């Protein structure tokens, strides 16, 4: 009697427990289901758009609003992640099938996306089928044409490189901004560019780099700021503008080259000259700037006089306090004129999107004068459409900044394109330690010949 009662009580408790477990499971399921509910009736499609540059968020929010007004029923959700997180989150979300519909894309990354088939070519969608590359600054549209001849990105903005400086520092050296115009450089003796760098370098006793008794071991102000070894970005702001001014090119083709030229004596002489500035006391050593040097900070703190950097950093320099900011063109090289790397960003459409046609409409809008003028007016970057570029130039001008040293190079065609090749990430992982070693001085520039052979063998695999 007692055993059967206790057993039935136990069974009752177990049943209650089962009920609780099953009940909870159903409840969780229901909550999950409501969480996945489709958007409200007024929205036909919600597009996720990702960007990495936080300063551009307000501008693209305006574009999104403008697009939504023109396309009722399509909603755009803008998300921003910092550069480091961006690519990891993007890749992970593409694997999970939960990626954005449209995202800001980079030239070092998109070739691998194309190979993996995660991008939709613009040519395959109605709104972007009639894409016209000639509506953008020259060459930008071609950067986004895959090896199959299809367009994988809508040109978004572009950047070039120039020299930032403080007019006060020039004055102290008895110089004027005019002295930074028409500078000449060569990898042998550095030309008038090195003369200026020497003049602007000051040791702790106040002796200048071009004066007798300059102590390169105890420098107070370096003539040239350091952006590091440049291994992780193809030397874009470090050595690309110097090496390209010797006539050197990265690869055997404008885009999709399959042979790098890091073994070229002109390239290696450029590196030797640049990193040789450390021993002369004209540029901070690797030891003093570390793994992530910041040329903006070096100018702001008065540690360096000339700070080479990309146009995307104009706002950052503009915010430095106590600096009378000036911008000068990079020096002319042995080929007779200055050269800057010309890098362009783009917007790509994910192949996983549920709304390819709507995404294409949005990308078409992102590439339109309407959106790019709005982006330009924010004065953060140079939009790819000429009208957008003009709006940006005007916005910078209203802040008292003459940005022609950046744009003139594009107008004159004195640019070299960012090298678009396959195996971008692998190539960078080979370049980084070797260039660091060359900067530190523990490896000779001739090591780049071996690196070049390794990279080319990867490309030809």
């Amino acid at each position: 009697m007692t055993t059967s009662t206790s057993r039935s009580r136990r069974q009752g408790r177990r049943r209650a427990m089962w009920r609780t477990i099953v009940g909870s499971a159903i409840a969780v399921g229901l909550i999950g289901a409501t969480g996945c509910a489709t958007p409200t009736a007024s929205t036909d499609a919600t597009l996720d758009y990702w960007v990495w540059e936080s300063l551009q968020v307000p501008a693209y929010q305006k574009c999104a609003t403008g697009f939504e007004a023109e396309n009722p029923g399509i909603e755009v959700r803008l998300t921003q992640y910092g550069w480091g997180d961006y690519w990891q989150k993007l890749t992970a979300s593409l694997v999970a099938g939960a990626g954005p519909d449209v995202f800001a894309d980079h030239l070092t990354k998109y070739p691998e996306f194309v190979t993996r088939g995660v991008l939709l070519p613009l040519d395959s969608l109605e709104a972007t089928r009639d894409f016209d590359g000639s509506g953008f600054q020259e060459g930008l549209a071609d950067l986004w044409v895959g090896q199959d001849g299809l367009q994988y990105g809508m040109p978004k903005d572009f950047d070039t490189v120039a020299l930032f400086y403080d007019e006060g520092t020039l004055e102290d050296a008895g110089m004027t901004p005019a002295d930074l115009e028409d500078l000449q450089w060569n990898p042998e003796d550095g030309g008038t560019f090195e003369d200026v760098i020497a003049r602007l370098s000051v040791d702790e006793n106040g002796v200048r780099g071009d004066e007798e008794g300059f102590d390169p071991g105890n420098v107070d102000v370096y003539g040239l700021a350091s952006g590091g070894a440049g291994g992780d970005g193809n030397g874009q702001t470090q050595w690309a503008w110097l090496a390209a001014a010797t006539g050197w090119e990265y690869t055997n083709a404008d885009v999709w080259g399959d042979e790098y030229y890091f073994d070229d004596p002109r390239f290696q002489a450029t590196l030797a000259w640049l990193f040789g500035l450390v021993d002369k006391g004209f540029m901070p050593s690797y030891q003093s700037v570390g793994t992530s040097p910041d040329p903006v900070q070096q100018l702001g703190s008065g540690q360096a006089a000339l700070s080479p950097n990309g146009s995307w950093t104009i706002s950052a320099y503009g915010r430095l306090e106590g600096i009378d900011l000036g911008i000068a063109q990079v020096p002319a090289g042995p080929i007779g004129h200055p050269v800057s790397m010309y890098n362009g960003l783009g917007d790509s459409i994910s192949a996983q999107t549920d709304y390819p046609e709507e995404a294409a409409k949005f990308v078409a809008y992102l590439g339109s004068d309407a959106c790019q003028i709005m982006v330009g007016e924010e004065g953060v970057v140079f939009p790819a459409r000429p009208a957008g570029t003009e709006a940006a130039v005007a916005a910078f001008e209203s802040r008292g900044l003459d940005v022609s040293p950046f744009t003139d190079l594009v107008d004159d065609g004195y640019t070299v394109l960012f090298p678009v090749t396959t195996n971008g990430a692998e190539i960078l992982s080979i370049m980084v330690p070797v260039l660091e070693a060359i900067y530190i001085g523990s490896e000779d520039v001739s090591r780049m010949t071996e690196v070049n052979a390794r990279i080319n063998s990867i490309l030809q695999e």
Partner: protein
Amino acid sequence: MTTSAPRIRAARIEAPPGKTRRGWTGGDDSRLAFLFVLPAAIGLLAFYFWPLLRGMWLSFTSWDLLSAAEFIGFDNYTRMFADPVFWNAIRVTLVFVVLNIGIQTVVALTLAVLMQRLTQSTLVRSLILTPYLVSNVVAALVFFWILDFQLGIGNQVLEWMGLDRIGFFTSESWAILTVALVNVWRHMGYTALLIFAGLQAIPSNLYEAARVDGASEVRMFSSITMPLLRPILGLVLIISVIGSFQVFDTISVTTGGGPINATRVLQVYIYDNAFAQFDFGYASALSVAMLAILMIVTFIQYRITRAGQTDLN
């Protein structure tokens, strides 16, 4: 620690024989018990065994996340054995572990002995543990700034003392030592406390007897403390060596593996391959190598220190 072991054995013997005869399929309660164990079992299978097996499988494939994994046999391992950066990573990791554990154990042991012999204050014990409450990333970043070549107060002090500035994180010869010392700073209090607990287990009458015999503090340390502390020290070493092999955060937020490859320890190299280059197959092979190394090191340590046995009996 040591006194609880016999009690557990006794408890096992006293367990009612009926329970074991019925087994897990026998009674109603066992089924319910099985139900309660199930979540943990599923957790263990899903988050431990499955990833381990999948990681091993991936090490035989070429996988970039976006396309399907392709079986390539031992290619990743062949590549690994011929990869100079891998061998450099092993060397750097070993140097780090030796520096980190060597310094940490000596410092922690000294602290623990001082705590036991000089003061029993809980406040002192809490203070010594404080660095451990700071997260690795925060500790690393704070030292990164303190020791910055240009701006760091550490280098300012060196300069005031008339010495040359040192690139603690930026010079090839200093970087790995600096990172090891940051980890020592953070972990020494915790390790000291573990050792202190071991010291507490040594019967005080041994010291009293030694003192009566006229033994000095040094003699008591070498003849009583060290031999009786061996099991707990062995355990502490095993735990801290495994942790040390897995160093990642301190390096990731400071040197990122540089200068050149001076601090590219195995974990950082695995991360570079997996998350920077999306070469998950190769990264998995490197992880399997790491697992093998850790297993060998732990086995050797366990044998040498005889951590499972005590000399107290």
